[in-house]
């Protein structure tokens, strides 16, 4: 979240909440109104917490806008829906009730949205209605009389298109009317969920639709219908999904070679320039062996991360992802999960943290527990630098049956993450029993062509987050590791590399005995420790440790060839497998504690996953040694 755009000024006394069904375009409208860049995707459940921002009305008055998670009714069935309902009904202990609620309804799915309007109107909540996605209604050549709907509802109705300024200007003007803000809020702080009112609200919605001559169902999107004939079919659908994923990983390697070469060249040039500019000494060592070797080793993977995210964004924007969830619903059900777990698990491919937070949409506690437990096994983007470093060093860049072998191995590692998550979910189901069967109810949005601007914003955000991490926490940890790897300095006459005499060297050698059975040397052990902050830090740490282990002639050499020379293939494979399973991310464990309310689960999870990583690495190492004798 861009902190500068979040309203922390306290100047905006008026508070407007955006409420609506999942995937009706609330966040796109929120971004349009506030200038924020919150994540938007073409599926339900992207927003799981409320977000605040500041907007200006037409006359320049400030209004705090609150983007709420989507909900179908005021009878919440999951944690995220509870947040939305409690906020609007003034039952939140942390947030003041909004002065006005803008109910966002999808013009192509009016009845569902109007049920929510009916529920709010029954309780007397002050509101305006925003009919979003009007562009799609118009594209079908349908008539939509907003004035007639407004007359039926008895509240202001504005038509909008979240992805353009259409409608948001009208809302800005409307919000200047003082009368809107001075409506009395009824005392609804004690209203309790009542499922009996759902039928009444539905009948009311239908009455409004008839009164507005909008009760004809929308025609199916022809392209979406035809595509779904293939993509939702169990055999062709799964086949397409697998081929798609396979092609993505081939592209990650094939397309990234050129920009990676450029970054490598630039890093080498900077290193050589600093080498020529500074006299030999501590500062030169810190800059070349610490900062440049460490950060250069991580930055090089930016192109691959961006290529991977490009494909993920395209799948999100196009509306393909909820189809994939539907396809996998049956498989997930057999594991004691539901299709609702798909979005959290899918988010975990970017990072386990938003994935774990997205598990709030799961109402059944046991299903949520299993989902959170297996989320860290999904291959997050922080693993990519580690995987590509090791694959580049140990897997020959050959073509097998027209396919790139490194791409094939990377695909295999992602599949291994998924398969291991499935296996763990199955074991947990045997141990703790299956959760309550939860029917997957998910909107299948129409397919869209992804907008270039959204893709560019998504990629820019991803690149800036990565580079901010590199320039912030990774740089700092690399400098600290350089200190630990440099001091105390080896006395004159010390035989061996000076780093072996340092704090880091001694720590690594002390712990090396424990990791020797899985083939890790002390340099790997040293790098694993800062790697607990984030997996990619391990690559930077290895860069620093190996740079300090080299003699003067080898300074500046790329990390890949250095480790290929120093490690056996068995060690390389063992470390790859370690990273498939090990929860090398303290932030993830901290979020599990926050989400599950206690330390028992994160501690149990860490013990289990580290144990699993150790066992899997041991098996891999022994197998590789015995099979190849490397």
């Amino acid at each position, binding site marked *: *979240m*861009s*902190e500068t755009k*979040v309203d*922390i000024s306290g100047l905006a006394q008026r508070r407007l909440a955006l409420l609506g069904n999942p995937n009706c375009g609330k966040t796109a409208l929120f971004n349009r109104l506030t200038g924020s*860049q*919150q*994540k938007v995707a073409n599926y339900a459940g992207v*927003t799981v*917490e*409320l*977000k*605040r921002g500041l907007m200006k009305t037409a006359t320049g008055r400030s209004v705090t806008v609150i983007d709420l998670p989507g909900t179908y009714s005021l009878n919440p069935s999951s944690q995220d829906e509870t947040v939305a309902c409690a906020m609007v009904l003034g039952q939140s202990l*942390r947030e003041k009730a909004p002065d006005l609620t803008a109910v966002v309804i999808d013009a192509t799915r009016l009845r569902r949205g109007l049920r929510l309007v009916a529920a709010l109107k029954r309780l007397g909540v002050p509101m305006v209605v925003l009919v979003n996605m009007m562009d799609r209604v118009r594209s079908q050549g349908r008539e939509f009389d907003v004035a007639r709907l407004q007359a039926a509802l008895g509240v202001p109705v504005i038509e909008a298109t979240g992805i353009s300024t259409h409608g948001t200007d009208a809302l800005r003007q409307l919000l200047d009317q003082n009368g809107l803000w001075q409506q009395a809020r009824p005392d609804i702080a004690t209203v309790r969920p009542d499922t009996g009112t759902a039928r009444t609200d539905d009948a009311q919605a239908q009455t409004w639709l008839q009164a507005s001559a909008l009760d004809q169902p929308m025609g199916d999107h022809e392209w979406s219908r035809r595509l779904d004939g293939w993509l939702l079919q169990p055999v062709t659908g799964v086949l397409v999904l697998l081929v798609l994923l396979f092609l993505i990983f081939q592209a990650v390697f094939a397309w990234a070679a050129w920009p990676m070469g450029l970054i490598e060249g630039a890093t080498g040039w900077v290193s050589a320039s600093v080498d020529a500019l500074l006299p030999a*000494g*501590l*500062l030169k060592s*810190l800059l070349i062996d610490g900062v440049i070797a460490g950060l250069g080793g991580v930055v090089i993977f930016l192109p691959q991360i961006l290529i991977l995210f490009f494909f993920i964004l395209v799948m999100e924007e196009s509306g393909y992802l909820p189809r994939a969830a539907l396809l996998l619903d049956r498989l997930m059900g057999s594991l004691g999960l539901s299709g609702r777990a798909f979005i959290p698990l899918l988010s975990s491919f*970017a*990072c386990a*943290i*938003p994935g774990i*937070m997205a598990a709030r949409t799961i109402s059944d506690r046991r299903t949520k527990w299993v989902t959170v437990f297996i989320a860290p096994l999904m291959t*997050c*983007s*922080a693993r990519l630098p580690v995987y590509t470093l090791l694959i580049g060093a140990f897997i020959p860049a050959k073509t097998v049956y027209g396919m790139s072998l490194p791409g094939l191995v990377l695909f295999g590692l992602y599949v291994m993450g998924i398969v291991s998550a499935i296996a763990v979910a199955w074991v947990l189901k045997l141990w703790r029993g299956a959760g309550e069967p939860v029917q997957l109810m998910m909107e299948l949005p129409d397919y869209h062509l992804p907008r270039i601007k959204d893709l560019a914003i998504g990629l820019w*955000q991803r690149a800036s*987050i990565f580079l*901010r*991490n590199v320039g*912030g*926490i990774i*740089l*700092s*940890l690399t*400098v*600290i590791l350089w*200190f630990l790897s440099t001091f105390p300095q080896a006395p004159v006459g010390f035989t061996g590399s000076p780093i072996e005499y340092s704090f880091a060297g001694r720590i690594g050698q002390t712990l090396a005995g424990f990791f020797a059975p899985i083939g890790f040397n002390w340099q790997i052990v040293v790098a694993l420790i800062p790697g607990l902050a*984030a997996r990619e830090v391990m690559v930077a740490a290895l860069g620093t440790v190996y740079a300090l282990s080299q003699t003067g002639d080898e300074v500046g050499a790329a990390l890949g060839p250095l480790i290929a020379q120093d490690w056996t293939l068995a060690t390389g494979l063992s470390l790859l497998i370690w990273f498939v399973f090990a929860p090398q*991310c303290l*932030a*993830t464990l*901290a*979020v599990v504690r926050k989400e599950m309310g206690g330390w028992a689960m994160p501690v149990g999870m860490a013990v289990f996953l580290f144990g699993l990583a150790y066992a899997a690495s041991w098996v891999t190492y022994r197998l590789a040694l015995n099979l190849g004798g490397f």
Partner: protein
Amino acid sequence: MNYDLIAVLALGAMAVAFVVRHYVRVSKGKAPVCGNCNNCACDD
């Protein structure tokens, strides 16, 4: 005076200060837990 040592010590102190500040801000909920996405609503 060993300016080389002073320079690296200053950089080291800055790095430690950054890391400490980062984790203090995270613990107070003022910074994203991981920095990997912008959707954790850390200001709440």
